């Protein structure tokens, strides 16, 4: 087994509703989804965010999209208009979650090496 960051296995998007945020996490392919289901539990996500999220975390599964949805309460220092954070609407909580490390079989780690990160030598004019 190898420890890899979630950014290598999934992409994500987050948004706000009052003082709650949700993070939708989508596996890059269906073979990776069971690894997320197994290891990215609500408890682990709660622990990952530490003091940054004050309320409970709930997890929902969308196997049809190879996706998990996390609802984080007390995630925004009071919510969009009250929060003093630059990220008052939780837009980058998605990227923060992808910092999490999980254990994957060595062949999966090898196959997905570098996924989620800009390739070496890339320049902005390319797109």
């Amino acid at each position, binding site marked *: 087994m190898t420890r890899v960051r979630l950014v290598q296995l999934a992409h994500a998007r987050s948004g706000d509703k009052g003082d709650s945020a*949700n993070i939708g996490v989508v596996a890059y392919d269906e073979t990776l989804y069971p690894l997320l289901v197994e290891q990215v539990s609500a408890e682990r996500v709660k622990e990952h965010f530490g003091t*940054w999220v004050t309320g409970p975390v709930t997890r929902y599964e*969308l196997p049809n999209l190879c996706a998990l949805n996390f*609802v984080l309460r007390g995630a925004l220092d009071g919510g969009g*208009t009250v929060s003093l954070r630059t990220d008052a609407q939780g837009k980058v909580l998605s990227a923060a979650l992808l910092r999490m490390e999980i254990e994957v079989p060595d062949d999966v780690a090898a196959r997905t090496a570098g996924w989620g990160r800009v390739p070496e030598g890339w320049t902005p004019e390319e797109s």
Partner: protein
Amino acid sequence: MAERDVVRLGGGQGFWGDDLDAPVRMVEGGPLDYLMLDYLAEVTMSILRKLRNRDPSAGYARDFVTLMERIWPTCVERSVRVIANAGGINPRGCADALEDVGREVGVAGKARIGLVRGDDLIPHLEELLDAGHDMAHLETGAPLSSIVDRVRSANAYLGAGPVVEALRQGADVVVTGRVADPALAAAPLIHEHDWAMDDHDRMAAAVLAGHVVECGAQSTGGNCMAEWWSIPRLDIAGFPVVEVEPSGAFTVTKHPGSGGRVDRASVSEQIVYEIGDPRRVITPDVVADFTTIRLTDQGGDRVRLEGIRGAPPTDSYKVSVAYAAGWTAAGTLLYTWPDALQKARAADVVLRRRFDRLGLRLDAVHTELVGWNAGHGPLAGDPPTDAPEVQLRVAVRSTHRASVERFSREMAPLVLTGPPSVTGYAGGRARVQEIMAYWPALIPKKAVDPHVRVEVRLV
């Protein structure tokens, strides 16, 4: 399937402040039957209320009227109908301004404006509270009466029904106040396909189509993490177009030649955006089950969505209340190498000691070091070693306005009295702003529906 069986609906504006030219590209860049434009975020209504207090003819999204001046003749020529929640807290004022513009750009006699009102609860607020609708806060359970003297706006999220009614009466441009975003987009599908409002699976399909288009380019490659570096030409991003079939199955795509990307990743990220329990996505018209969606990436910027199931809607509308909740300000300073991070931290200590000595009544003080921990907070890990620069950002809030005013004058002195190699105070004093807090609640539909009005007029 014959061409005419497909309704093409586009989302041209994900929020007030989105790409001004996107709706023009949507109307001119390819086939389209309906253009949906979303202007209202949670906090927008209270800002519009403030504007209308100063000028009774204001209180709606002026940008929409300016936009229609550009695209209306093309819309008439190509039979593109437009639906927008640009009416804010003054849909009638918006429709009046639109009518004037319509005459100026030569669509008089050729276009009808539909107007949907009744979402604004401010005119009936006392009556509703007296009738026992306590509009308790959905998270805390506190009754609205506890803050009623500070309420600045209160709007129910209406469903698709009144918009469908405006279309049935022949409206070409429908202006609304607060209508649930996906319902705004669902209405033309219900109208064109003649779907019954109690056909829950098709209502769910309509709501999903609305959810996919309501945030503009977020479903066509914008703000998409999956290989973002290879998503082409976001300067001319194609905004989403859904081609909806009578069965409710639809294909997400974008106009030919436009930038961006429509694929499994871009569409999936939008489907899971701002939802709670995916099995119970509650909207005014249906409770949709997002775990029943079947997604097929067909390649060529085409993603097919089908199979979604729905359950009967609840008997409540969601209400969004904005209320005054104190004052806030934020200031920044830039510290540079050497020891940028240490200097910024030292400046923060100086600042906080001054707050104490001045006896400022601040309810919260939040410090960020931009370049290290502003985005991810404690998750950012160890500080960068020997950072070339770091921006100190300090934000405060308080119910005591004078303390926030005084805070706004405390950052600048650090340029001369704090740690060295500091710059970036060209912007002047931190601006003090009133906080409009958000109060989510529910209200029975039967308490709101009698106030809902639909009018259609010829320009």
